[in-house]
């Protein structure tokens, strides 16, 4: 069992970015878990089994983040994920997070493996049905305690929605120690506060293929 050593939750409300404030602030946030890196200090060829063991951690982070954001699962419009590996680990340990982090977050937001929700659930009138069709963008690095990482954010149903291309900086003061891993999930409840660069809008998603 993977034990969470430390849980860190970050929520922000952006009223404006020196332009006209919108009808309500943009809420974004991230949840991070600090855990011991079981592979620290050596090369372990067979690391993949840890992915299954990280599933409950992924679910806990996703659920805690949705609760902290306070807009409900259906209010989440963008997402991303990241990992920071302590100095005694390797970048590949961060890659362990792709599957358990991504799918935990998508399932929490309504995605179903058999496509029940995905098929035809989306429509322009309900641009955010919470089915999380899009790939979860990600980044990873090896870093010292307190390292900051910019977690990319894109629209949960269509990766090409331009207003939702964004990033949120996340750091946990004091973590990761050399033998630790920091796994992060991030979500946003809307587009950039002064988005005005055109491109595909969330109201124009038509293919429901996770991209457009």
């Amino acid at each position: 069992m993977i034990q969470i050593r430390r849980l860190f939750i970050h929520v922000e409300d952006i009223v404006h970015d020196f332009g006209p404030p919108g009808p309500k602030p943009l809420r974004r946030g991230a949840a991070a878990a600090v855990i011991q890196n079981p592979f620290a200090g050596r090369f372990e060829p067979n690391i993949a089994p840890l992915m299954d063991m990280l599933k409950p951690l992924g679910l806990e982070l996703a659920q805690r983040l949705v609760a902290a954001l306070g807009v409900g699962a259906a209010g989440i419009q963008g997402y991303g994920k990241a990992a920071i590996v302590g100095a005694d680990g390797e970048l590949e340990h961060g890659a362990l997070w792709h599957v358990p982090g991504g799918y935990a977050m998508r399932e929490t937001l309504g995605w179903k493996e058999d496509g029940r929700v995905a098929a035809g659930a989306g429509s322009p009138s309900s641009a955010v049905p919470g089915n999380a069709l899009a790939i979860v963008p990600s980044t990873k690095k090896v870093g010292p305690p307190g390292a900051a990482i910019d977690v990319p954010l894109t629209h949960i149903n269509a990766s090409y929605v331009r207003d939702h291309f964004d990033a949120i900086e996340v750091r946990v003061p004091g973590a990761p120690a050399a033998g630790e891993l920091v796994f992060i999930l991030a979500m946003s409840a809307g587009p950039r506060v002064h988005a005005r660069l055109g491109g595909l809008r969330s109201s124009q998603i038509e293919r429901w293929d996770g991209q457009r």
Partner: protein
Amino acid sequence: MIAAIRKFVVQLDEIRLEMGRAVEPPTRRAVAMAVIANPFAGRYSEDLAELTAIGEELGGLLAAKCVAALGIQPHEAQSYGKAAIVGEAGELEHAAAILHPKMGVSLRRAVLKGAALVPSAKKLGGLGTAIDVPLGHKDAAFVRSHFDAIEARVSDAPRAAEIVVAVAVTASGRPLARVGGLRMDEIKGEDGLR
């Protein structure tokens, strides 16, 4: 709202394991930050009352955000602290005007009681400058298990004409505190010290 606010950031930090040992119950600390416009950026003003009013407003508002993030009742708060980072077009005294004259009144109301001094820190800084907000027990400053600090930082603030204002509230002391001194179960909580 008196303060012109650009952004709020609220962080919750929960420690469940320390040095391989379970922390029971886990330590839970919160810090809430507001990024505000500095009304006195770039000019000297003898009268800083506007910042004092902002401090009074933000003390209660930010403390309430911490209490909500912790998921506790106001009286369950254990320690607190406050801090400000002034952007380079301001002066250190602007932080003092926010933090010292009136912030404590509304902050204490949000954590019910608060007999002890609210420990504080201030500095000038730029985007992403971090400040360590000192923490002390809210009713008895000598409680040794609650001497602590929590880092506050906003990645894109303060701009030159902004101020980052931070309030921290906890529902615990340090993880695995064991250096003696006055314990929380020994306090009277009347004089603010013991």
